[in-house]
C-alpha cells in the first residue's frame, strides 16, 4: 500500500490497541469485555495486514499463537484458583488487593478496582481472542499470496 496508508497505520495501531485494552479493562463495568476488546485489538493486526502485506507479518504468527495458548491457560488457571471452594469461585472479590475492593451497593458510576477474578479473566480472554484472530488473519493473508486479487 501507499506511503500515506502505511504512515497512518503506524499512527493508528497504538491507538487501536489502547482502545482494545480499554474495552477489556472496563469489561466488568461497561458494555464489552474480553472478547470484544480482543476483537478490537485484533483489528490492529488487520490494519497492519492491509498496510504492509502478509509476508512482512509472517514473523508475528508464532508469537500470536503462543499468546492465544497463554490466554487459554490463564483463564483455566484463574478458574482453578477457587478450587479450594468451588471451581470458578471468585477468590479475589472483596479481598482488598488488585480488583479486590468490595462493590458498593446501589446505583453508581462503577469502580474499576472491583470484580475479583472477573477482570483478570477478561484479560485472559482478550489475549486469547487477540492471539487467535490475529494468527488466523495472518495465516489467511499468507495463503492468499501477496497480489491484490
Amino acid at each position, binding site marked *: 500500500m501507499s506511503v500515506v496508508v502505511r504512515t497512518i497505520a503506524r499512527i493508528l495501531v497504538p491507538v487501536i490497541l489502547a482502545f482494545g485494552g480499554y474495552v477489556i479493562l472496563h469489561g466488568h463495568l461497561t458494555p464489552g469485555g474480553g472478547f470484544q476488546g480482543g476483537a478490537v485489538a485484533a483489528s490492529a493486526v488487520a490494519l497492519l495486514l492491509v498496510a504492509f502485506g502478509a509476508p512482512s507479518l509472517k514473523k508475528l504468527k508464532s508469537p500470536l499463537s503462543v499468546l492465544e*495458548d497463554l490466554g487459554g491457560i490463564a483463564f483455566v488457571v484463574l478458574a482453578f484458583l477457587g478450587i479450594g471452594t*468451588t*471451581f470458578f469461585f471468585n477468590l479475589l472479590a472483596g479481598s482488598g488487593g488488585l480488583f479486590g475492593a468490595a462493590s458498593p451497593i446501589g446505583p453508581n458510576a462503577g469502580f474499576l478496582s472491583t470484580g475479583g477474578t472477573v477482570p483478570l479473566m477478561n484479560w485472559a480472554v482478550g489475549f486469547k481472542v487477540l492471539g487467535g484472530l490475529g494468527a488466523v488473519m495472518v495465516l489467511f493473508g499468507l495463503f492468499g499470496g501477496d497480489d491484490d486479487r
Partner: protein
Amino acid sequence: MNLAAHAPILAVAVPLLGAFALPLWAKLRPSLRDLWLVLVAGATAALTVLVAVQVYTVGIQVYTLGGAWPLDTLAPGGFPIRIVLAVDALSAFMGLITALVAVVGFAYAWRYLVEDEGKTLALTLGTLLWAGMLGMAFTGDLFNLFVFFEVTSIAACGLVGYRTWASRGPEAAFKTMVMYTVGGLFVLLAIALLYGEYGALNLAYLARQITGSVVDRIALALLLGGLLMKAGAVPLHMWAPDAYGEAPAQAVILLVANTQISLYALFRVLFTLYGGVADPAIGWLVVALGTLTLLVAALMAVVQMDLGRLVAFGAVSQIGYMLLGVGVGLTAIAARPAYGLVAIQGGIFHMLNDAVAIGLLFLAVGAVEKAAGNRNLANLGGLGHDLTWTTGFFLLGSLALAGIPPLNGFASKLMIYQSSFLLSPILSALAILASILLLAVFVKAFQGAFLGPKLSQPKPVPVPMLVAMGVLALGVLALGLFPELVVRHLVAPAADALWTGRDLYLRAVLGR
C-alpha cells in the same frame, strides 16, 4: 480439597487445560508434549472413573460452579442461577465411553500420526473434543450444553479438515461445519424460546416448570432437529460418511463417540426435560427416524467401494439401532414399563457396543490405509497374508457389528429386536434385515481387502496401533461373553436414570 466432590468439574477442566498447554510443550520438545498428553489423558480417565464410581455407588453427583460449596445450587429464593453439573448414571456411562475411546485413540495415534503432518494439532483438537464431550455429558444446564456442543463441533471440524494437503479433507470439514452450525443454531433457538418462556436455563428447573405449550413443542422440534443433525441420523446424515472417511482413524473413533454424546443429549431432553409432558407421538417419530436410519445407511453401505466410507455407513446405521431402542422405550414405557425399560437398556448398551466394535473397525481401516497406502477395494487384496492381526481385528469387528453371537453387537441388538417386536413385528424384521445387509457388506469388504492372492507387500503395522486395536477387540469379546454383568451393573442403572430416576435427578439439583 475433597477430590471426590470436585471430580465432575475436574474431569472437564483438566483436558481443557491440557489442550491449551499441549502446543506450548510441543514448541519446546515433542517428547515433553507426549509426556504431558499421557499425564492429562491418565488424569482425565482416572477422574471420569472416579465420578462413575461415585455415581454408581453413592448417587447423583451435583456440582455448582462458583458456588460457596459444591452443592450450593440455588440462589436465595430457591432459583438455580449458577452453572450446575449434574452427573447421573447415564452421564457417567457416557463419560466412561468417551474415556475408553479417547485413551485407546491416543495410544493408537502415538505411531499412527506422523510428526510433521500436524500431529500436535490433531492431539490438541482430540483433547479439546474430549473435554467438550465430557462437558456435554456432565452438564445440568441447557445453555452450557449448547456451549459444549459448539466446543465439540469446532474441535471435530478441525480434526476432519486439518490435513489440508489430503484430497478431500477440507471439503468434508466444510460440509460438517455447515451441518454442525445449523444444528447448533437450532439448539440455540430452542434454548432461547425456553428461556423466554420460563426465564431459566437450568435443566432440572425447566423440567419442573415445563407445561407442554405450543412454544415448548416448537422448542422440542428444534432440539430434536439440531441434536439429530449432529448425531448423523437419516435424513441429516450426509456429513457423517464424508467426515468419517476423511478424518484420521484415531479422530474418527472420537467423532463416533461425539455422535453418541449428541444422542445422549437428545435422550436427556426427551426424558428428563420433556419427561413430564411425554407424548407417545414423539416416541413414534424417534422410532421412525431410527428405522429409516438403519435401513438407508445399510443400503448405502452396500454400494461403497472405499473401505473407509463403507465402514462409515455402517457406523451411521448403528445410530439407527440406538434411536430405535430408545424410541421404542419412549413409546412403550408408560403403558408397559418392563418392555420399555428393556428397549432403553438395549439402546444404551448398544452405544457402548457400537463405540467398541465400530472403533475397532475404523482403527483397522486406518491400519490398512497406513500399511497398503490406499483404501479402495478395487486396488486392495490379499492383505491377510501379511497383516495377520489386523485381519483378525477387522473380522471380529465386522462380525460384532453385524450382530453375530457371541460377540457384543448381538447382545444389545437382541434386546432391541425383542422389545421392538412387541411394538410392531415389522420394526424388528426391518432391524434384522439391516443387520443381514451389514453382514453382506462386511463379507464383501473382508473378501475384497484381506482374502485372495497377495497383490503387493504391505508395510508392517506398528505395535502400539495393534495394542490399541487389541484392547477394543478384548472389549468386543468380553462384552459379548458377559453381557449380563455389564447390563446389570452399568446399563440398567443408566436406563433407570432416564425414566424412574427423573425425580431423583430433579431433587438432586433443586433440593426438593
